């Protein structure tokens, strides 16, 4: 019914020149003193703990495995002893987590059955290895295997969609990071394509990474059915729903994840995890995360052990003496960390942001030229000058009633009217809003970001959605 835009996202917003965008500097983080490992990570339900308090664990040892429902195994990520198993809040949900004190040794237990040549795997052995390494919990809806690792069963997989672009404000061009890993990526891609019985594979690359797209094309020139497309760099082009619609031309129904049309969405980091799992038997114990935002001393990419608490990251990389807010994820969709010592970087976290807390009152703020302010409108001088723009937690204005400027409608990546949805939902009329495709909202947060009346449109929409779900 709705029209899909093959060329790219409808509306959307291009974040340019944001202060605190990571540079392509890489650093390995030291093994932390302790890690917090939630038993719910990535896609899937909570797994059952296999260890008890006081047990010795090794990095790479499986400590959680689901017995029913969809889930993938959870691994310890450091060598040491389980100090505590308790409930924590992780990404806005309560979950059980193991706190493991580490002895700062770096060895990792690998899995058996790894083969250097990825084309030699049989379907069963590959499925087993992917599942046991925990890789299957990555991606938007998990990686379907013969085990119960995804909401999609293996024979229903129709496309593999790979996102090689990241469009959030603090995104570092993917091509810059993975330029030297092209051959690994291609091997993983081909292995997965074979694994899913030669389904079509679509790769979306940002227009900023033309060179990367070219090298991918060169090394995949022999493979059939792998398409590489260069897409616009507008946020939220890399959302699984949008990416699936753009690349495959198939519409994802409102309120559904891309698995409803048989699409498996992965990103390049996930492909690298697949590669390491298959070629080295490496379980998911560490990953690269980007440090974005002006609250960090230096913005770069670091490799951390999964479960490293936010407090350790901030102690090592944060700017001292500045009040900051730590977000798990990008600044638009990231969750704020309540208790830094108990907020881990889980396996699905790609980026962390640390933005400055700004409760200062700026004298005559609205009359200033606004050299550092980012805005959708072109009111500020920053729109005409090549200056770095700053993002902080200030609201930058008072709450006002909606003035119907329609910025939200212009910028929404779905054909929605966020202002109407807000109007209905904030008055408890979610039923009405449903007729305006309330469920089609993918919660990208852009409408709240641009609203000059500072209305939290997305919060209202979320409330409305919950109301609808309750009624069902």
């Amino acid at each position: 019914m709705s029209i899909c835009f093959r060329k790219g996202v409808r509306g959307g917003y291009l974040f340019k020149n944001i202060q605190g965008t990571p540079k392509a500097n890489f650093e390995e983080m030291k093994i932390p003193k302790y890690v917090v490992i939630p038993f719910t990570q990535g896609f899937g339900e909570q797994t059952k703990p296999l260890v008890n308090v006081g047990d010795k664990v090794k990095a790479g040892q499986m400590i959680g495995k689901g017995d029913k429902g969809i889930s993938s195994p959870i691994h310890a990520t450091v060598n040491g002893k389980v100090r505590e198993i308790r409930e924590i809040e992780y990404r806005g949900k309560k979950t059980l987590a193991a706190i493991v004190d580490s002895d700062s040794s770096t060895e990792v237990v690998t899995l058996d059955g790894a083969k250097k040549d990825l084309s030699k795997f049989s379907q069963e052995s590959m499925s087993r290895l992917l599942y046991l390494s925990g890789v299957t919990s990555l991606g938007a809806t998990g990686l379907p295997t013969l085990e119960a690792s995804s909401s999609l069963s293996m024979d229903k997989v129709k496309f593999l969609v790979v996102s090689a672009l990241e469009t959030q404000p603090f995104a570092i061009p993917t091509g810059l990071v993975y330029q030297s890993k092209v051959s690994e990526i291609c091997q993983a891609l081909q292995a997965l394509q074979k694994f899913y019985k030669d389904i079509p594979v679509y790769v979306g690359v940002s227009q900023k990474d033309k060179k990367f797209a070219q090298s991918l094309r060169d090394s995949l020139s022999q493979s059939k059915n792998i398409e590489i497309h260069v897409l616009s760099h507008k946020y939220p082009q890399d959302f699984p729903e949008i990416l699936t619609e753009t690349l495959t031309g198939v519409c994802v129904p409102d309120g559904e994840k891309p698995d409803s049309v048989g699409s498996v969405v992965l990103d390049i980091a996930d492909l690298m995890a697949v590669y390491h799992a298959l070629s080295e038997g490496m379980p998911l114990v560490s990953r690269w995360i980007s440090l974005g935002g002006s609250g960090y001393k230096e913005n770069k990419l670091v490799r951390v052990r999964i479960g490293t608490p936010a407090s350790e990251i901030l102690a090592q990389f944060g700017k001292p003496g500045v009040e900051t807010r730590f977000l798990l994820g990008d600044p638009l969709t990231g969750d704020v960390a309540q208790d830094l010592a108990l907020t881990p970087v889980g396996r699905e976290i790609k980026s962390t942001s640390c933005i400055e807390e700004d409760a200062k009152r700026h004298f005559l703020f609205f009359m200033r030229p606004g050299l550092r302010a980012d805005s959708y409108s072109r009111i500020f001088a920053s729109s005409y000058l090549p200056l770095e723009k700053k993002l902080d937690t200030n609201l930058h204005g008072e709450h006002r009633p909606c003035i119907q400027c329609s910025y939200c409608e212009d910028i929404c990546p779905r054909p929605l009217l966020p202002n109407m949805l807000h109007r209905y939902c904030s008055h408890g009329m979610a039923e009405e809003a449903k007729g305006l495709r309330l469920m089609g909202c993918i919660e990208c947060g852009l409408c709240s970001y641009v609203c000059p009346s500072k209305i939290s449109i997305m919060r209202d929409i979320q409330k409305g959605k919950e109301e609808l779900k309750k009624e069902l």
Partner: protein
Amino acid sequence: MLRKIFDLHYKMLEKYPSLRPFKPLIDAGDNFFYGTPHTTKEKPYIREGVDIKRFMIMVLFAVLPAAIASVYFYGQRAILVILASYIIGGLTEVIFCIVRKEEITEGFLITGILYPLILPPTIPLWMLSVGIIFGVIFGKEVFGGTGKNPFNAALVARCFLYISFPLYMTGGAFVEPYPNSIAIENNKPVFQGLGGFTSHRGLFSHEIKNGKFDAMCEATPLAKMKELRLKVAEQGSTPEDYQKYMNYVKTSLPNLFWGYRSGSMGETCAVLLILGGIMLIAMKVANWRTILSTILGGAVCSFFFYDANCLSDKLYLMAFTLLSGGFLFGAIFMTTDPVTGPITQTGRYFYGFAIGCIALLIRRFSGYAEGIMFSILLMNIFAALIDEIVIMVRYRGVKK
């Protein structure tokens, strides 16, 4: 320094509870000079820099050239009129907010300057005050203040005056602008010296008709054109009549463009209005959809409504209708008032087009010389209906 004053006020508020009602006033001042101390509480945790104050101030900056031109053309009295509008209207707004214990919002910043600019230069100050009080109360406050008003407050105020005191709002109320016509007839440049900047004729008087106001009354170009056209349309009109009609249209075009003509204070100088409009569109403050479709609607209708002997005459007429009267001012500053227009972007095309058409319809077929005010007010009513239809069509397949 300023900070201290505000803090002092807040302390006084705490000490004397009887002063409580004035809190909105102090809040408004405080918020005006200092940005907000609030930080984000919900996702997303970052917000962009534009707020309503900035948004509104930009409209003010865009209309400022036209306001300055009004001083140039009509003397220092224009300043007085604008000030009076701000003070009286602002007071009304403040009183309402205090009574209702609400925050004072920025909406009046715009109404306060747009309103005097669409009045004749000779408007008596008391009448102006009555108008703005009516406009603020019945155009805005009864509906719940800025953001909820279905009508453009400035237009409601003007409409009220137009109907209550037609004598002061039509015909003789319009005077010839500075520099006066003698300079023009002698082929001197139109822009000469300081124009009205140095004149304080009739500052406080409204006795213009008795000669205290030393400019000549002059019909607006639209009224003159209407008169000439009627003559052409009459039985037994001669080719000379037609010639006269077209001559008038042609010769007045440059004056219309540069603003040398009689009319409401701010609406005369087309070039400054167009510049303001371009500025607003470039900054994404005004919606280009409304502006363009209004102008398009006006152009199309003027093409069909006004007869002429050849195409070039028709084009002259079209340019004349678009530049004359309050059409440009309305299209750029009144139709784009986002609150009173439709919500949907698609709706804005229809809204604008209808405004342009209805304005021309009124001009051509009714007794009024100018129709843009009525057409905008009329379409304000239908804005919600347009939205309804657009939404119905767009979401027709969605299951409830």
